[in-house]
């Protein structure tokens, strides 16, 4: 049960086989998705018809490549926009929440902490629906009483951003709080003692210390927003983010262009992962 304790060969061998199979199970779908992006066939399935870049660069039907596929490219753009908004918002509120919970005592703090965790416990579909219901109530109320049709309260990008922001903020808060907890308060006092104002202390000492956590939270937030499906599905309007566009395409029956876009997503994630590892190194 430990590498230092001798074991029978058969036991060893079967344990390692199990681990091997586990990782095959873990990686197989990803490898399959990636490799069929280069299959020169109209369907992402065997037989292998030879290697091609068509699913990225070809500009004519039926083998319309990713870079010429208007709806998918548009989806990437929308997702990128949404992810940027969600990341910015959730880092801002996450940082503020982290200070609130780590630095201040107030009544019902315990209860507030449970509330803070709530968005992680509620299934994404329900979170999306509840926001849909509420914004609809608001929009109808305004329309009935004042007669204005508030377009932004109808399903669309604003609601998508708000829906994702609702639960991603909790994650950002947890990540940033964890680092703030480790902060040595005497650093702030030292800076204050050396003549810095409260604001300068925050700007020159506390925030630089939190920066790796804020960047880390940002990477996670961006990724979760980009990949989110459940909450988005309920709130989406006419502008479809990438996951929704892909889902629609998947229901129609897919061509390897979906593999191409998946590969693109994986590379993007890998890049983000790399950034976050570099950030970890920095601290």
């Amino acid at each position, binding site marked *: *049960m*430990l590498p230092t304790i001798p074991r029978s060969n058969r036991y060893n061998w079967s344990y390692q086989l199990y681990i091997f199979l*586990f990782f095959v199970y873990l990686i197989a*779908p990803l490898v399959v998705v990636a490799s069929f992006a280069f299959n020169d066939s109209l369907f992402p399935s065997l037989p292998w018809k030879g290697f091609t870049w068509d699913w990225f660069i070809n500009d004519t039907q039926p083998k319309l490549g990713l870079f010429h596929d208007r709806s998918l490219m548009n989806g990437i753009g929308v997702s990128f926009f949404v992810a940027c908004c969600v990341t910015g918002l959730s880092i801002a509120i996450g940082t503020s929440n982290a200070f609130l919970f780590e630095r201040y005592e107030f009544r019902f703090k315990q209860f507030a902490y449970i509330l803070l965790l709530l968005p992680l416990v509620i299934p994404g579909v329900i979170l999306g629906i509840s926001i849909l219901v*509420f914004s609809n109530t608001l929009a109808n109320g305004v329309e009935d009483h004042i007669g204005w049709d508030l377009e932004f309260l109808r399903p669309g990008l604003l609601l998508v951003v708000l829906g994702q922001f*609702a639960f991603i903020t909790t994650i950002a808060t947890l990540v940033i709080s964890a680092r703030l907890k480790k902060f040595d308060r005497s650093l702030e006092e030292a800076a204050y003692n050396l003549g810095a104002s409260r604001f300068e202390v925050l700007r020159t000492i506390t925030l630089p210390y939190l920066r790796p956590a804020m960047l880390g939270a940002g990477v996670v937030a961006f990724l979760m927003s980009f*990949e989110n499906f459940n909450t988005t599905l309920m709130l989406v309007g006419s502008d479809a983010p990438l996951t929704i566009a892909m889902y629609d395409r998947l229901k129609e029956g897919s061509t390897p262009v979906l593999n191409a876009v*998946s590969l693109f997503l994986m590379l993007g994630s890998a890049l*983000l992962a790399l950034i976050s590892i570099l950030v970890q190194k920095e601290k």
Partner: protein
Amino acid sequence: MNSSQTRLTLILLLSPFLLWLGLLVIIPHIDMFFLSIREKVAPRTYETSLANYAEFFTEPFYWNTLARTAFMSILATVLTLIIAFPVAYYIAKMLRGKTKSILFLLCLLPFWVSELVRTFGWMILLRETGVISSSLQWLGLIDGPIEFLYNDVTVMMGLIYTSMLFMVVPLVSTLDSLDDSLIEAGYDLGGSKLSILKEIVIPHSMPGIISGCIVVFMLTLGNYLTPILLGGKSSMWFTGQIYTQFITRFNWELGAAFCFLLLIVSSTIVWLGLKLSGQTLASTVAKS
């Protein structure tokens, strides 16, 4: 810092927190609750009643779906635990240094890829014209194409796949904190593999097991994509039913009631799990 300044900053920090939670989480759920307890009696006239909840209990298809969803989620949680434990143990206790961190990162890999992409991968592998079916035909093991999609086993496999990360990570971290010398002492005192596992390793990793299970259960119960794509139309997953009520049938009242039923089932089972294991929600959820 004087106290009025402290109060001011407290209010400044408290207001975004309250706005965020209030407007995006709490009030929407309250609103949804009111929606769930009203009944359309005539066009644009409503009454407060429990009719939507009554409909759920009188229509077997609905509560069957919920029961099935809950049961499959519990099963998926247990299976995930059984599959993940040896792997987590291997990573935490059998490996050292670089290999260890590489394998651990490999476990996190699926998290970095969208659930949609992962599920798409399984569809390519498992469908009638998919990789596995073609390979088996090519090998001569089967005569015609086989459809592996759209059955419960496949849905279960997909759910386990999606949940794996949330089980492996807490397990590895608690197992990591188990001192090797405890296992060695167990051996030294004449324990067998099984007894050491039962009396030393599992009791120690209980917090990790509980938090992994709870997170996996909640995620599985609320999952939408995997059961719908891998299970198809007949998958009978409760979130699918909610989607149908809201988007396809446009019966929001019933859909809202369904949302609450799902939340109730989810929190009851989680609460039971926490009670039985003596842990708190904060300690489990915050960890993952």
